[in-house]
């Protein structure tokens, strides 16, 4: 039943001044890359990637950006939220050397993905980028999972520059079999182009405004009717190349096109 299960918050971790993780009981199987719909009673219900997968428990990790995340940010242990999921597909980790590139809150779904990759015996290279040092998170956990490269737009930590630029260099140096990414769409689009050029396997987790999360309303469609809530949020290189809107425009809650950049 694709219906919210009402649960109590088990634990809250402040990842940085702007980002928190909320832990909730979750008894179903969920794969890295899959997401849940988080119901904040009386406020909204929003999509959140799973950021940690434990036994009977998961977390999601979010930045305060508006009403719903703002309310979540103020919540305390024991508070009640609703959870629908697992929804969508997960990452498929192919090849032996995987480069993970996460930008902003896009770092969140990469943590369980890199953990799984490590568990499968793969060699991980991880690039995480943020505007500034303060906005980084998961640094300690990521370090344990592979070779970690940090980038900040302002150079306050790690390398200075855009994650996509850093990633391009790392791709050429490290020659990964696959790039797995989540973050701003323009960053993912650049990585897609890079991987197409170089013939490297690629997966990206795409964000679109979501309403029904049942694959019905069509609100979240990209390309030729691919539902991010159903066929996504993770898409392959070959699929995304054919999406003429990927990296070009997204849609607001009314379905109007909103161009990037």
């Amino acid at each position, binding site marked *: *039943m*694709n*219906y*919210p299960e*009402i649960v109590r918050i088990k634990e809250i971790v402040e990842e940085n001044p702007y980002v928190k993780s909320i832990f909730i009981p979750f008894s179903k199987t969920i794969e890295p890359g899959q997401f849940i*719909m988080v*119901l904040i*009673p*009386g*406020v*909204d*219900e*929003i999509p959140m990637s799973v950021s940690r997968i434990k036994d009977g428990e998961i977390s999601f990790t979010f930045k305060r950006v508006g009403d719903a995340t703002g309310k979540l940010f103020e919540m305390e242990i024991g508070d*009640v939220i*609703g959870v*629908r999921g697992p929804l969508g597909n997960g990452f498929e980790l192919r090849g032996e050397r995987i480069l993970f590139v996460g930008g902003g809150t896009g770092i969140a779904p990469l943590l369980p993905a890199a953990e799984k990759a490590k568990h499968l015996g793969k060699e991980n290279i991880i690039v995480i980028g943020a505007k500034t040092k303060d906005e980084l998170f998961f640094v300690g956990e990521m370090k344990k999972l592979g070779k970690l490269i940090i980038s900040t737009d302002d150079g306050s930590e790690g390398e200075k520059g855009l994650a996509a630029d850093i990633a391009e260099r790392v791709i050429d140096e490290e020659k990964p079999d696959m790039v797995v990414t989540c973050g701003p769409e323009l960053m993912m689009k650049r990585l897609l182009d890079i991987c197409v050029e170089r013939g490297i396997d690629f997966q990206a987790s795409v964000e679109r405004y*979501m*309403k*029904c*999360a*049942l*694959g*019905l*309303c*069509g*609100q979240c*469609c*990209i*390309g*030729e*009717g*691919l*539902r991010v809530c159903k066929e996504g949020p993770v898409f392959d290189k070959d699929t995304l190349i054919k999406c003429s*809107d990927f990296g070009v425009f997204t*849609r*607001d*809650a*009314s*379905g*109007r*096109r909103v161009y990037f950049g």
Partner: protein
Amino acid sequence: MVNIGTRISELKLRNPTILASGILGETSGSMKRVASCGAGAIVTKSIGMKPREGYPNPTAVEIECGILNSMGLPNPGIEEFKKEIDEIDEIDIPVIGSIFGKDEKEFAFLAKKMEEYGLDAIELNLSCPHARGYGLEIGSSPDIVREVVREVKKKVSIPVFPKLSANAGDIVDIGKAAEEGGADGVVAINSLRAMKIDIHLKKPILYNRVGGYSGKGIKPVAVRCVYELSRELDIPVIGVGGVETWEDAVEYILAGACAVQIGAAVYYRGLSVFAEICEGMKRWMEENGFESIEDFRGVALK
């Protein structure tokens, strides 16, 4: 040879499965996908005068016998929607533009626009069960329905199909008013006004509290409406509500429907539902010696 083609007024469909309004009908890409999955026709998302964001989430949940939704008529507005229509030239099945408005003037304006955009027919959403000021209030008054249809028909020359609801008023009265107004067919039914209260939250689960109920739980009501409308009206009836399998589609056609729309089943059965229903219906027709839809349409009315 079995032929599952059907006609609704002047529209010719390769098969009687139509994508229902509000399901994947908002973007050019999703409409193309549905067409390529074998649907006989497509109804667009209901489009209004201005962009509307709709209600906050939750806007849709699965409940025991169907789907409960209260999207709140989100849509990019008729102007912006042109972009989508401009991109669907390659679709070779009829595309029906669904519209909603607050009065006959808005309906007429929107219909004209849809015709200009090149769509093949108009569906009038007179019956949205949850958006205040649209739908229910309009769709439950025979006089308003007659008037809206009449005004729209004055403006456009493509077929016009009002979509009726079983929420308020006698659906046959409304259907007759639509016919008097000049409708080329009627669509029945929109989702049923309904509610799910979550006993843990102790509140309605949808943000908007009240929503529209679709899926197999409403099929018995919808089949009854199609049966009654087919019996009482001379214009074609399109059946909607809980069509999931070829058996469901056959049931509607036996009740008099010349085509069925499919909404919630896209969730339950996936996008292959159109092709699967067509396959099953063909097999059944062969077994029963029917060569065309008309051979068994309305047989249950006798």
